[in-house]
């Protein structure tokens, strides 16, 4: 019979795992989805089965948004692509991804190891301090034109989820524009947003929010 109350007996562990690395968003694993009818089923909560099986890594940490309002746009100017040192070239730091495309690899060091660009509250302006990071990734992508990235925009948890989704998109697009200026071809970049749905830090304070307002660079096949 159906009298299941709004209740969850199951311990909920909220996201978490700040140490897990975001996995590629197209790693071939499918999200696991199970739909149900509620016609005349009498089994209450029904088999929930959200097995962890298909749980793609993207789950790990993404997201955090800013309740952001306002947002002043800007595309931090990108000075020439003169990458400053740091294992820029695909050479030793890179590895072949699943699809054959070269990626910096999980063991990348230096600027190529940095995969997150952080934003201020209410802002999608890319700060100057991230220019070297973007220049390094742009150089890698220019030298490896078969390589592709996803730019995932994220916000902290405050405010509207839908507005945060749009704000995360603005952050991803701001990074995409800089990469374009630096010579990366449009077909090497796809910007998407997770809004506040995938926080890097599951906490609820300013320091967590700061880690969650970000754009992640995800190499396809890495």
């Amino acid at each position, binding site marked *: 019979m159906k009298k299941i109350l709004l209740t969850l007996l199951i311990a*909920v562990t909220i996201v978490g795992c700040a140490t897990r690395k975001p996995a590629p968003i197209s790693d071939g694993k499918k999200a*696991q989805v199970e739909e149900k009818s509620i016609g005349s089923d009498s089994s209450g909560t*029904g088999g*929930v089965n959200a097995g962890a099986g298909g749980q*793609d890594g993207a789950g790990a940490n993404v997201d955090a948004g800013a309740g952001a309002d*306002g947002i002043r746009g800007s595309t931090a100017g990108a000075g020439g692509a003169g990458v400053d040192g740091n294992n820029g070239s695909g050479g030793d730091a890179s590895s072949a991804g699943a699809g054959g495309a070269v990626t910096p690899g999980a063991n990348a060091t230096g600027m190529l190891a940095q995969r997150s660009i952080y934003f201020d509250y209410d802002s999608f302006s890319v700060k100057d301090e991230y220019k070297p990071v973007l220049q390094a990734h742009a150089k890698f992508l220019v030298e490896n034109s078969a390589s592709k990235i996803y730019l995932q925009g994220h916000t902290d*948890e405050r405010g509207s989820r839908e*507005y945060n989704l749009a704000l995360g998109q603005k952050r991803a697009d701001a990074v995409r524009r800089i990469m374009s200026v630096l010579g990366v071809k449009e077909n090497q970049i796809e910007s998407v947003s997770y809004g506040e*749905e995938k926080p890097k830090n599951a906490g609820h304070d300013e320091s967590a929010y700061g880690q969650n307002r970000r754009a992640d660079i995800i190499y396809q096949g890495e």
Partner: protein
Amino acid sequence: MKQLKYVVILWGLFIGLSARAELTIEISVQGAKQIPVAILPFAGQTPSQQNLSKIIGADLARTGLFKLVDPAGLQPDLKQPQHVAFAEWRGRGAEAMVIGTLETGATGKLQVRFHLLDVAKQAQLISLDYSIVPAQLRPTAHKIADVIYEKLLGEPGAFNTKITYVVKQATSFLLKVADADGYNEQTVLASTEPVISPSWSPDGSKIAYVSFEQKKPIVMVQSLATGARSVIAAFKGNNSAPAWSPDGNKLAVTLTKDGGSQLYLMNADGSDAPTRISSSAGIDTEPAFSPDGKYIVFTSDRGGSPQVYRASASGGDVQRMTYSGTYNVSPRYSPDGKNLIYIQRNGAQYRVVMQELDSGQIQVLTDTALDESPSFAPNGRTILYATNVKGRGMLATVSHDGRIKQRLTTQVGDIREPAWGPLLK
């Protein structure tokens, strides 16, 4: 100001489940008049059947507008209005009372009859009969509560309705549908990727929502009767914020296929290409139709901060609706079309506010701090929203005048993205 505060704990005792299910509804009422009503156990109710009188009583009590008068010991087994000792019930403080019968017919059908009586006038206000199958007991109890509510208060109830919401449980996102009293919870979708923005079709048969199962937001529509799903919008970029037109034929959505987040109109069955109805350099999202279908309200940052705007349903004649504060989002029309509710930020507080369209007057309805996703009950009396207390997502309701507040909490769990469904037939 009288502040009445009590906690109703509903135990899932009669369920027969080994695990104990529990929903705690905490109600806080400020300054509202409460009608004392006695709801007697229905004659013929057996312990194995669901308790009609308790379901009705719980519905009425949850509104904060009624006070239940304990009928114990006074005229048990009362079946007929003509046998009511009105003076005694008056002595107990009841202004209204409900008596009824429940009989099992030869075909297995249940015959339910109730009488609503005015104790002071010693008169019957209404009496109705229902012939139902056992599975309809709870919905029938809610219908009876709706009749009582309307007779005593002069406005429609919203007990025979459902709500939807999303539960985050470990790594799973569960889209749930439950009766408005929290019972009969069912999982309609279980996904390892986020699900947001569920939206009821006007007839209550389908839910549109945003799923990240393809590693980016896409809009889907799912039939509740069959569980069948269809992809409505999966264009390049983000696809989100589905909102049904009042006739159920169209969906307004937010797409980024042409650049930034903009509003589009599409057929609700996904046929035909989307028609763009907004054109700003910034974000336009969270569309919601007016009840008459003539307007769409939405959130836009075109003026430098997110504010609520209104356009005609085809996107023309855009007007800014909010000027107070730098963050006003998630607008929804009241069912009578006279008010807007939305989330307003004030400092670190994100709260549900109501704005009267004619006067522009704004009232902050809630005292919680991180409110999201407000939606009206179909009678316009109550607003359901999500909030966050100590890092845990929970649902809450507030009456349209801000006086009556409820928090729906669970022992464990993170609940978000609620939407109140239409009145069921």
